[in-house]
Each structure stands twice: as structure tokens, then as C-alpha cells.
């Protein structure tokens, strides 16, 4: 991933900053600049999510792309944030503990090493809530 493409979304990736449509109240993460419901009449503002959520579905990745091959196996999941939107994320937990319906919260972690540039990408992962 190119450096500028990564840095552009650092606030979103590091701090779970998405957006909200103040017209209809819908939350977006990943962030959207256009509300699909309100379109041009929707007013979009930034929103920092609290990072609490629930696992909707998951898998254990055993064979990954080059960037992630050193970290297999890892748990990949769709998490529904308490505010509504869903995102794809890793769950930092042993594969056998992952479950649908599991409560999780966000943490700041190393996500991937980019072989091409040598850069280490940080971002948000989730861990099981106590």
C-alpha cells in the first residue's frame, strides 16, 4: 500500500473515526462522504466510535497474502459496532475462542508489514471484552 494512501486514512484507521449523517442519524464506518439514504440532503460529520461491538461472523485465515503470511493463523471477523455500522477486522484471540455473538472492543495494534516498502502498518484490531 502506498504511503500517501495509508496516511490519508490514519485518523480513521487508528482511532475508529467514521462519519454520521445528521439528517437521518445513520452512522458510517468505514467513513462515507455521501449518505445512501439522504444523498444530497444528508449532512455528513465526523464521528469517533466508542469501539464496542459484537462479532457477526468470522473465519480463521490459514493462508494469507504476502503481507500477512507471518501472522497466520489469525481470526478475521465482521464486527457490528454498537452504533450500527459493520466493519472487517482481526480479532486478537486464539482461533478456538472466536464465536458469533462474542462481545469485543477495539485496540490499537500492528496490522501488517509491507514487504515492498518495509513499512509496518498500524491500525485497529478488536479483542474479546472481559
Amino acid at each position, binding site marked *: *500500500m502506498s504511503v500517501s*494512501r495509508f496516511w490519508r*486514512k490514519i485518523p480513521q*484507521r487508528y482511532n475508529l473515526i467514521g462519519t454520521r449523517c445528521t439528517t437521518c442519524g445513520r452512522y458510517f464506518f*468505514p467513513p462515507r462522504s455521501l449518505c445512501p439514504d439522504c444523498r444530497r440532503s444528508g449532512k455528513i460529520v465526523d464521528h469517533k466510535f466508542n469501539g464496542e461491538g459484537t462479532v*457477526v*461472523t*468470522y*473465519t*480463521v*485465515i*490459514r*493462508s*494469507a*497474502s*504476502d*503481507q*500477512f*503470511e507471518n*501472522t497466520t493463523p*489469525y481470526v*478475521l*471477523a*465482521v464486527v457490528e459496532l454498537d452504533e450500527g455500522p*459493520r*466493519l*472487517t*477486522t*482481526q480479532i486478537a484471540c486464539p*482461533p478456538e475462542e472466536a464465536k*458469533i455473538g462474542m462481545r469485543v472492543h477495539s485496540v490499537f495494534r500492528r*496490522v*501488517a508489514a509491507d514487504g515492498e516498502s518495509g513499512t509496518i*502498518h498500524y*491500525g485497529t484490531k478488536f479483542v474479546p471484552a472481559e
Partner: protein
Amino acid sequence: MRDVAVIGVGCTEFGEHWGTSFRDLFVKAGALALEDAGVTGENLDALYVGNMSAGRFVEQEHIGALIADYAGLATNHVPSTRVEAACASGGLAFRQAVIAVASGMEDIVVAAGVEKMTDVGTGASVDMLASAADREWEGFAGATFPGLYAMIATDYMHRYPLTREQLAEVAVKNHENGAKNPIAQFRNRITVDTVLNSSLVADPLRLFDCSPITDGAAAVVVVPLERAREFTDSPVRVLASAQASDTIALHDRRDISTLDASVAAGKRAFAQAGLAHRDIDMLEVHDCFTIAEICAIEDLGFCKKGEAGRLTAEGATALGGAIPVNTSGGLKACGHPVGATGIKQIYEIVSQLRGEATGRQVDAEIGMAHNVGGTGATVVVHILGA
């Protein structure tokens, strides 16, 4: 709008073509289709090419022109257009060709699909295929393409009574069909145990749940129906051409286990053709993973949600079943050169409707093709009739 018919089809063998370049693959398929149609290159009005990722697989863009050139069409300056929708690129190329003929703009049009995938390593190709999904918000988190379909499978198996063995039956059936298809990449029969004993790729999906990395090309020729008899005694009519989109990311879908774009494109196709499910005699669906075939059969409305696994295990989708699915072997056994797959589906249906599917022939007058891009962000459905 004019009615449109397919008058010729051609397909390379699918597999690892070490000695054959991207452009040679296409030339082979195109020549076979033109020969089958009894058309010569000079008569072509336009070309549509489905290709996902030559920019990354072979560092070449501008595929439409490249292919027109190496097919010997540059001298006549035949318009050639590449369309891309990840793994649905082939289906879309066919749809654009149909629209071009239906509009009256063109008369004799080739729709082709081609992908040369084996020139890069496995890690790189995993990464490239992930670009069919959301690179920024799925790929960045470590989502592979099998991983996304694995999450569909996890959700599906949590909500519906699909067993791991039933899922394996999809692969077993498709290898059985592939064994009878001379162009198939895999022509070996397998058992449920073969699937269950293969290595885990992304739980619960194992290696034999996944379609392979493949080189291949396919091409078909379409003309206005009113001109079809000039070329062939067995034209195949295009009864419907429908396309639908959905969110690029799986996590943004209304329902993880339902491809709403399949539902929408399927309904539009039935409406266009004025047909019902009982009228369809065979299906080529997009089984990039076993779970994808299960979802496809249901999302297109051929049974209720949760029933396709049982029906597959009972043989309803086998060659002799009530509704044969993926008589070609599907993506699983026939192989999946991503840009070519959608055209190969048309090739298979035309072969079946013309009674030329020796060894795997079913009794069919109407067939449906279902081609998916990514995890369902694009779906193209066609209905063809003899």
C-alpha cells in the same frame, strides 16, 4: 430493441498454460468461436473483452486494443472494449455485446473473456484477487478472498442446517461433471473425504472448497436474431440479460449469507424473459467456493434459503437431477480464469442447448448463467434458449 442470438462459441482448455502468452490464449478462443460461427474476422463489427487484472497479472492495460490487434482486427479498426467487474468481467462483456447488437449499433459482435493468472506467485495472486473486494477496508484488515466467502459460510452454517458434508458434495458433484468435460482443468473424481481431508484455507473452507488459479480464454459470437440463420441452423437466443450491483464490502450487506445482487439480477432476468423457475432446465452458477453455489441456487430462487445443501446431497443438481447445476464442472473443476469464466458459462449453455455436450449432455432447452464479481458486488444473469 432487437432480439439477439449466439451463433458461435469457442473455448481454450482451462489450466496452467506455461508456454502460452496472454495474447495467444485469446487468439485461440477467438478463432474457435469464429470458426464455429462461420464468420470471418473481416465481418466483425465490434469486440467486447472481459478481463479482471491484466494490469497486475501481466502489467498490461488497454486489453481491448491488444486483443483486437493480435486477433488481426486492427487493419479494419474494429472497435474493441474491455469491461471489468472482477470475476464477473466475462458475464459483463457478454452483456455489453448483447446491448450493442440490441441497440442496432452493431451487427456481428464477439464477446470474449481471458485471464492469464499463473505468471505470478500464489501469494501475489491471493493479493490480486483480494482487489475484487474492498482493498481499503477489507484487504487492509487481512481479508483474503477465500476468507470473505468463509465468513459467508460461517454465518450461513450458524443460521441454516447446512452440514460440512453437504458443502463438500458441491465439490464432489462439480468434479464429477468436470471429469466429463474435455476443457476442464480438473478431470479427476473426488469424494467427500477428499474435501474434508484437504488443508484448511479459511475455516470452514478447505482447499477443495475453492476454485483454482487458472489460465484460459473463451469467446462467443452474437448477431441480431433476424440474421442468425445466415450463419447457423442452431442459433441460441438471448432471452434475458440482467445485471445488479451491491456494496463492495461484505460487511456492508443487508444479509451476510444472501447475495442481494443475485436476487435482484435473477428477478430482473425472469421478468425480462417472461419465464418462471420451472422453465429453466440447467444452471451455470458462480461456484468460486462451494458455499457460493449453495447461495446462488437459493438467491436465484430455485429453492428456499437453507435447502440447497440437502438438495445437492440428494443429487437434485447433478447431471441427472431435477435441475442440473454446473454441468461444465463449474469454477471448481472446470477452472476459474476470472475474466473468462462468465463467457465459459455461455459456452457451456450453448453447447448443452445445441446437444453437443458429449458425455455430460442434459435434456435442456433453456439455461441460465450466473456470474458474480467479488463477494457479490456485481452479479450478471443471462437466460438463453434453444
